[in-house]
């Protein structure tokens, strides 16, 4: 069996063998459920068969949820010294990073999969735009993958989980809010670059149901970049 899969399986089991997996799953579902169906500008107030509210709020919660999932992955291995055990086995730093990434990403996917009943409900309520909803889910998965890669990178830096969590949160906030916010103050190419780098720019167009190659390339590059940095950090051993 490929080491990537062996590691991913162990870590995924770890989430469900402890409280963390269930806790994170329920926290996400409670909040996203409340904001989609009960609080604020929810589905019943809008009187539309759309999940826009869900796709709008989901990144706000994933912002916290994903770092909470990823924070222990490498930091804890470093703290307890088990990283030495892993890397002296037949496992490369790349396989380690990919395995950890895969486990966290699958965990996020499972969490998101629990919202599929929302889709089924909305379809019953009226004429839903299936394209937009499917696009929204694809966007959500790409966004989660990017957050997961950022989280894994943050976790690879130090042997402290809190530091990993906060750092991942800060990077997520930068990509989700700050780049776009600052970008609006600049005109010309600086503003263009900052806006191109910000997540909402790409996420919103996908969740409208427009699947553009450049958005997929954007998320792909983010994932690749942060996983690569994490690998670099781990393989630099002195």
């Amino acid at each position, binding site marked *: 069996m490929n080491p990537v899969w062996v590691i991913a399986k162990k870590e995924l089991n770890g989430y469900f063998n402890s409280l963390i997996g269930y806790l994170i799953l329920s926290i996400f579902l409670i909040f996203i459920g409340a904001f989609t169906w009960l609080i604020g500008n929810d589905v019943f107030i809008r009187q539309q068969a759309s999940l826009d509210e869900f796709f709008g709020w989901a990144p706000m919660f994933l912002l916290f949820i994903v770092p909470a999932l990823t924070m222990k992955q490498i930091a804890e291995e470093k703290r*307890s010294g088990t990283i*030495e055990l892993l890397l002296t086995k037949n496992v490369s730093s790349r396989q380690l990073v990919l395995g950890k990434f895969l486990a966290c990403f699958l965990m996020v996917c499972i969490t998101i999969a629990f919202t599929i009943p929302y889709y089924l409900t909305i379809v019953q309520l009226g004429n839903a735009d299936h394209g937009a909803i499917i696009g929204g889910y694809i966007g959500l998965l790409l966004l989660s993958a990017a957050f997961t890669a950022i989280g894994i990178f943050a976790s690879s830096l130090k042997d402290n989980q809190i530091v990993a969590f906060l750092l991942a949160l800060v990077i997520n906030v930068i990509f989700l809010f700050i780049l776009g916010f600052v970008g609006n103050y600049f005109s010309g190419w600086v503003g263009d670059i900052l806006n191109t780098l910000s997540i909402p720019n790409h996420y919103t167009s996908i969740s409208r149901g427009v699947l553009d190659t450049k958005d997929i390339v954007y998320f792909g590059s983010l994932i690749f970049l942060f996983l690569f940095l994490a690998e670099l950090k781990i393989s630099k*051993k002195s």
Partner: protein
Amino acid sequence: MDIQIQQLTKSYGFQKAVDNISFSVKTGEVLGFLGPNGAGKTTTMKMITNYIDIEQGDILIGGQSIKSGKMNRHIGYLPEHNPLYLDMPVIDYLEYCASLQSVSKSMIPTRIREMVRLCGLDVEKHKKIGELSKGYRQRVGLAQAMIHDPAILILDEPTTGLDPNQIIEIRDLIRQLGKQKTVILSTHILPEVEATCDRILIINHGKIVADGTASTLRKQAQGQQVLKVKIDEGDSNDIFEKLQKLEHVAMVDFVDRATNRFEIQSVAEMQSNKEIFNLCVKNNWVLSECIPFETKLEDIFRDLTLN
């Protein structure tokens, strides 16, 4: 598989942790790696297992450099503080380690059973590792190191935290394994080296200061024969003078004048037991003690590493 270490160097800042050391270990040999704390033992072991990068020199395993990164599956490694996943059950942990070492799926249950038997983990195998005592954790650490039946075992202080019975068991196990495998083990416990190792390598400040079997090291360190002698029924000054006149005696020292105890150093490469005996017979003294003084491994270690 043989291990060859060639001009290995590693420095941290200005300090050389490992300074141009070369040695080799053959299959079927158990090498005891000795040295004070910070001498470079762990650093060397971490380089052999490819955990930290080699700065200069090379390490060959079965003729192939470890820099390729492909040699790790031939190595079983027990790191210094025996890191473990405390929330994993013993069996799951061993299975995880076996899969990571690319043991084929059909072989994994057999290997786990074998390791559980070999390391005496049968009673504890379903417990979480965090619930085990230190001795059992150490056994789990050994089991994970050997799960893929590696040709090479690198054990960093394998018997720390074990009780005397367990220490003897683990030593026997290492001896047994050492017949077919190449083993390097580091330790602070000197009798352990004598009990388990075919060869001793002492390093200090990153350099090799001694290399050989326990008995050759002793011979080198000892030089002259030293005897502790007690002679009854004679005047101490008279005995002292007569002893000093003996041909093979280089030096006589009073240990205790009242009970006539002496320490006698022989001339280099000479034995003075016979002369002393004959002298006693001639003078009607009673030779009630004659103990050859053996240099202890501890003394050799101190001599070589305290300078």
